[in-house]
């Protein structure tokens, strides 16, 4: 803490020299990410060239061009490092950069929403962090510094946040005053390795499966595009080599492998992302620190939180954990990074966060409403009927009984899940806010205070217009809360009331 005084922020400074490494590293990563098929072609062709002694003549040029481009960008990045300065002047955070065209970015303190740090392995080795400043406004205007000493970064953040607080005494409302009384950051929870495994196992594995399938498909496509392999049907190969029966067992094994693999992937991702996660209650709001290789530190100012959302699933319910999301106002659109995610929260922590975001919640009168049952029919028609029709046509074309049965069972399944979907969709309306509740297997809760809303929309399809129902949307600076199939009169009443609440409210909402 004493070190703070040693920094003079008004002198323009360069980043820590480690930034050069990071810039070059990022560049290489980018090149590989964008040009990997070409690189692969080049490498494979070169191998080909060496073994066979003949190949197309264009490829060496491609390699050369790639190297020249890479070289130019590398030199450019290093010069960019020397042309990059940051300093603080007159309550503004300033960055000067640019090689040919000088750029000066000023962000006034009162426009700064949050300052976040991130550390990857290189950062950790040299005790530096990358610093990101998120500013207000609907335009994307972010300052980021690649590498800066940890203590200095903390000093800058402390300095800016205190200056910012000083300049805005009026905007401190009751919520904040309560917070200021607490002096020490209060640890709400910490994920121990056991919790982490629980979280990992109860993740949505369909996502992991999707990643694998998507990735596999993408590789397959790209590789085919670059003419690497013959477009022989792999199934034919298997059939030829191992006989017809193997095809079926191949699929079974593949499915099993995929399931195990996707669980492993979610487990791994969870460990990488949430290792040693600590969730704090700070003076201004909440703070989350986590990560194995890349240490992330994110903070959410209570004022900036627009709505909160927590959800469970079958597996999560067994472990009695929820996943909590704090949706924060951000400059970039609905950015994942701005909505802080805390997996593995217990009911206790959810309640603390609820009470902080919406202290008056417990004292309000709620009326509970359901969405229109018409949604069942629509879901059966669109989610059930259309795929069933496709299946049925296929069944006739392929003369397959299996597909025919699927065509009958599918819409029936959709019908029952839709009934559950309708039964579970509830919204609880109060004078100051709304709590929505929905989900077929798990339940997702969303809590939104009315004064955080910045636009209200009703949307009706032709069918909905005829049946006098509407989808209701509440837009906030951190994303949208949607309620489907609300009876029109109710939707209009809520719209008018919410607009009234927003228009008479003079609190700062972000």
């Amino acid at each position, binding site marked *: 803490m004493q070190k703070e005084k040693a920094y003079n922020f008004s002198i323009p400074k360069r980043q820590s020299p480690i930034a050069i490494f990071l810039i070059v590293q990022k560049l290489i990563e980018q090149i590989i990410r964008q040009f990997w098929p070409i690189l692969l072609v080049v490498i494979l062709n070169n191998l080909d060239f060496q073994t066979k002694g003949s190949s197309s003549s264009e490829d060496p040029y491609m390699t050369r061009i790639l190297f020249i481009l890479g070289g130019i960008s590398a030199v450019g990045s290093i010069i960019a490092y020397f042309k990059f300065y940051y300093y603080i002047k007159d309550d503004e955070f300033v960055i000067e950069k640019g090689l040919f065209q000088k750029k000066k*970015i000023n962000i006034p303190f009162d426009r700064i929403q949050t300052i976040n740090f991130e550390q990857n392995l290189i950062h950790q080795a040299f005790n530096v962090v990358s610093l990101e400043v998120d500013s207000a406004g609907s335009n994307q205007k972010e300052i980021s510094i690649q590498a800066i000493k940890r203590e200095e970064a903390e000093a800058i953040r402390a300095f800016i946040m205190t200056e910012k607080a000083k300049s805005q005494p009026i905007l401190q409302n009751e919520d904040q005053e309560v917070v200021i009384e607490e002096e020490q950051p209060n640890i709400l929870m910490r994920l121990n390795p056991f919790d982490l495994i629980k979280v990992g196992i109860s993740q949505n594995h369909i996502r992991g499966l999707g990643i694998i399938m998507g990735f596999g498909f993408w590789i397959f496509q790209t590789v085919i595009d670059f003419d690497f392999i013959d477009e022989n049907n792999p199934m034919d190969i298997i059939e030829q080599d191992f006989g017809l029966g193997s095809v079926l067992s191949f699929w079974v094994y593949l499915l099993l492998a995929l399931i195990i693999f996707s669980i492993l992937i979610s487990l791994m991702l969870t460990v990488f992302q949430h290792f040693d996660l600590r969730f704090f209650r700070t003076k201004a709001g909440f703070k989350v620190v986590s990560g194995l290789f890349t240490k992330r530190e994110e903070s959410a100012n209570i004022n900036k939180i627009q709505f909160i959302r927590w959800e469970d699933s079958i597996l999560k319910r067994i472990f009695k954990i929820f996943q909590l999301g704090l949706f924060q106002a951000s400059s970039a659109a609905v950015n994942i990074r701005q909505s802080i995610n805390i997996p593995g929260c217990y009911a206790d922590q959810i309640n603390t966060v609820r009470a902080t975001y919406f202290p008056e919640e417990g004292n309000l009168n709620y*009326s509970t409403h359901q969405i229109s049952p018409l949604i069942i029919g629509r879901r059966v028609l669109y989610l059930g009927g259309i795929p069933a029709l496709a299946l049925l046509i296929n069944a006739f074309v392929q003369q397959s009984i299996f597909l025919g049965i699927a065509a009958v069972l599918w819409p029936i399944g959709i019908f029952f899940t839709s009934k559950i979907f309708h039964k579970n969709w509830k919204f609880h309306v109060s*004078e100051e806010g709304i709590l929505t509740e929905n989900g077929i297997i798990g339940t997702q809760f969303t809590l939104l205070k009315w004064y955080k809303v910045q636009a209200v929309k009703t949307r*009706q399809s032709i069918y909905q217009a005829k049946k006098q129902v509407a989808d209701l949307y509440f*837009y906030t600076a951190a*994303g949208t809360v949607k309620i489907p199939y609300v009876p029109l009169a109710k939707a209009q009443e809520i719209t*008018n009331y919410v*607009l009234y609440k927003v228009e008479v409210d*003079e609190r700062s909402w972000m």
Partner: protein
Amino acid sequence: MIFENYEINIDALPKVETGTFQQLDENYLVVRYIGSFIFFLILGFGLIMSYFLTDVTEVPGLFWGLVGLWIVWAIASFGLTNLGYKIRGYILRDKDLVHRKGVIFKTMTTIPFNRVQHCEVSQGIIQRMFDLHTLQIFTAGGSNSDLSIPGLKADTAQRIKEFIINKTVEETNAPPLAIDTLTEEVVDELASEEIPSQEIEKVWKEDAENLKSEI
């Protein structure tokens, strides 16, 4: 009744649904027709090219099927344009702006002025021929709730923009909690201290430049 337990009378609240919507300028319908016409012209050109340059004729009926689709789509689109024009409109109220549009999906969006970040008037090429403008209203946190109202006469667009900006200035510059204790002088002083609209424009210009140099 949903909010029975509240001291204000829900029925007395201003109602979004009963307002009369201002229609867009008549010429905007022409603008839309021209836009559609160009689109279908290009599509038609593509069809003709495909007749000569590709194997589309080898599949019996495919080409004429596509032509039929083109005709049906064009007619439907012109019909929808007409209907859409009739539905599309806005209500400028004291504290918010209501915008209605859409034939197949009818949406009604309301943005309170005290949540508006920034306002802009812009113009497309076809709109320029008729001296029509688009008013864009931006809110914080991405483009989801941003509004754009096309087909406005130059002075209408400007006037609405000024109106909204004045409203946002009123809302943001008046110190919220202490308004009673302040004299009007102080409020005026605060209001004149900075001109957010200009400042916002400045920031946006900077941004555009940043973007340009990045590209």
